[in-house]
């Protein structure tokens, strides 16, 4: 039982630290400005070209085939350097790795991982949120293509995306979980309309909705088999619950480090309540780093991820929202019209208990799948 770096891990950390000293783009706080999202694709490619992205993914698709514990070191050093977090797309990679055939994996994974292609995830709809399987977007066969009609919403990164990872109904005549399939759909074609959505913290470049009206996708762009959409979607959302697939630990630590520096520089400005909120954020962020170390160490022994992802999602949510409260406590709500980054950080934190499955859904899953309680 050892939290310390092995010699190989320590060498990796040293090389990473040296690289970050020269290549940190020093963007502002994550998810608080549109400028941040505009600069993020370049950061993705830079991280990839430096050899630091996709550490645990297969080498044949541009990853590095390393044990996933290296992601803990990566996130730790990104936070220490005040660098932006790594792009959050591990769950899409996992979905394609687990369900795509060799052709699909070879065609889509390299550019997804390198950042040359940008992807968004078309799952939720206006009438299909927590009850995702009731979605209505249709994909109807027409010769060698499918024709897509429907409305997707809460589609992160849709404004920049080249591709949509689309969950659509291919068979309306079977029970709702059985008639779904997944496609890789080009976004730059007639019949695809992307509309940005403004989040409660004012950013417009992260969130969107997409209208499909007669867009076409070649049948060979189906990921998995016809009707495999639901299990594939569940693979995706289960990985979307995992802090290490998202790399959020570094985002939280970066914010906490920044708040800590400000309070330490002018301690007399902050009262006991503000310090207490900061201390809780420090405790929570530290916990998450240790928790991820524990989970990823278990994988060294071949333990695959399972329903405990719902526990991790709730832990991650509690961390993000404690960090949000600390930002609000330390920075205030900018009533005087001054820089409102802390307010934006706080407001953004409210999304974490909704995105990737609400906290209520996670609690249902824990109750049923882990505690063995009967569904009501």
């Amino acid at each position: 039982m050892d939290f310390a770096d092995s010699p190989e891990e320590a060498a990796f950390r040293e090389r990473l630290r040296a690289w970050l000293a020269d290549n940190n783009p020093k963007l502002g706080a994550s998810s608080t400005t549109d400028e941040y999202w505009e600069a993020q694709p370049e950061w993705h490619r830079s991280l990839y070209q430096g050899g630091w992205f996709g550490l645990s993914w297969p080498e044949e698709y541009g990853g590095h085939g390393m044990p996933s514990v290296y992601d803990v070191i990566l996130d730790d050093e990104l936070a220490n350097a005040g660098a932006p977090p790594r792009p959050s797309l591990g769950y899409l990679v996992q979905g394609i790795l687990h369900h795509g055939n060799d052709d699909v994996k070879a065609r889509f994974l390299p550019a997804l991982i390198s950042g040359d292609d940008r992807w968004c995830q078309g799952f939720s709809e206006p009438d299909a949120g927590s009850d995702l399987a009731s979605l209505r977007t249709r994909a109807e066969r027409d010769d060698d293509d499918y024709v897509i009609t429907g409305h997707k919403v809460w589609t992160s990164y849709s404004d920049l995306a080249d591709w949509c990872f689309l969950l659509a109904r291919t068979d309306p005549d079977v029970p709702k979980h059985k008639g779904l399939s997944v496609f890789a759909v080009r976004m730059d074609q007639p019949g695809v309309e992307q509309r940005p959505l403004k989040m409660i913290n004012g950013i417009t470049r992260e969130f969107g909705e997409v209208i499909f009206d007669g867009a076409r996708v070649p049948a060979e762009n189906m990921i998995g088999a016809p009707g495999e959409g639901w299990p594939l979607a569940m693979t995706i959302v289960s990985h979307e619950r995992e802090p290490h697939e998202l790399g959020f630990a570094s985002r939280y630590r970066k914010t906490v480090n920044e708040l800590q520096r400000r309070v330490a520089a002018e301690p007399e400005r902050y009262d006991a309540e503000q310090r207490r909120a900061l201390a809780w954020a420090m405790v929570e962020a530290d916990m998450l780093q240790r928790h991820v170390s524990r989970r990823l160490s278990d994988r060294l022994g071949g333990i695959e991820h399972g329903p405990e992802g719902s526990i991790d999602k709730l832990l991650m949510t509690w961390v993000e929202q404690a960090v949000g409260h600390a930002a609000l406590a330390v920075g205030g709500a900018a009533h005087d019209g001054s820089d409102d980054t802390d307010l934006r950080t706080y407001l953004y934190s409210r999304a974490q208990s909704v995105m990737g499955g609400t906290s209520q859904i996670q609690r249902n899953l824990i109750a049923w799948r882990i505690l063995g309680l009967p569904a009501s």
Partner: protein
Amino acid sequence: MDVRLSPEQVALRDAAAQAVARLGPGTVAGLDDADRAARLDAAVVESGWRELRAGDDGGAPWASAVEVALVSEQLGRGCADAAFLGPVLAADLRRLAGAPESDESETVALTPDLGAPARAGGAAVAVDAFGPSTALLLADGDGGTTLATVDVAGRGAGADLTRPTTSVATAEARPVEGARPLAEDDLDRWTALTLAVTAADLVGAMAGAARLTVEYAKERAQYGKPIGSFQAVQHLLADTLVHVEGARSSALHAAWAVDALPAADAVAAAATAKAYASRAALAVCETAVQVHGGIGNTWECMAHVFLRRSLLSTDVLGGIGPNLDRVLRHAGIGGR
């Protein structure tokens, strides 16, 4: 980095779990079974767990704090009513002071609120006061802080029904033969150990309370269905598991840090875990009382035994407030 337990650590954890399952109180009525408690005590003596922090010839502890934490968690999970915390902390103090080992019933004395080690001349209570024994405390000696010992008259009582406490007369403290003064680093190490081990006990207590409550929710029926089928109850129970897992990850790191990191960093890691576990244990044990309903508010239900145990473990060297202050101080942000 590989934070999986070694095979030896797994065996130690399982041995502790089995001893507690076989000889722990099990029920509130079981707490009054003196024969059983004596057998549990004998099993703990036999196991050598109380000597895990005694020193070898070079002054290094026999086992790391991780081993101590693993045992502590299992004892907490089964509400074990046998001395462990006090003797382990006493052995560690003797080791740090280079003093010879005592007989194994020695414990430690803390201030009456349990928030700090007791000092000679001040008010003090001994923890793990299961019978006549001695308790270590600190004294001002020639070369700095030294160890002293006082007699513990007999079995105590207190909030925790599984680990009695009792006042001790520190005016009669005697110096510990062969003990050298404790350096600041020594006291920091001991503080880190104490916080990490009590955090582990809290993880165990909340895991035990959560297990008890989930089992009850599966059996207790209302409206013709188990109460565990109702979403409002399910969400309370789901949160207990989230608290346990977060606290366990933090506590595991704290236990490792006691012997692996510089003393000040070890204290910060332990304070982090202790603050987290203190909040989590209270939430989980209160949920245990709530989900048990009317039964949960009666003496016969084990829920309050877990809650009371958590209150003691929380207060040893401080719960949330003092530990958040330690975390801030370590980051260069002074107290209020």
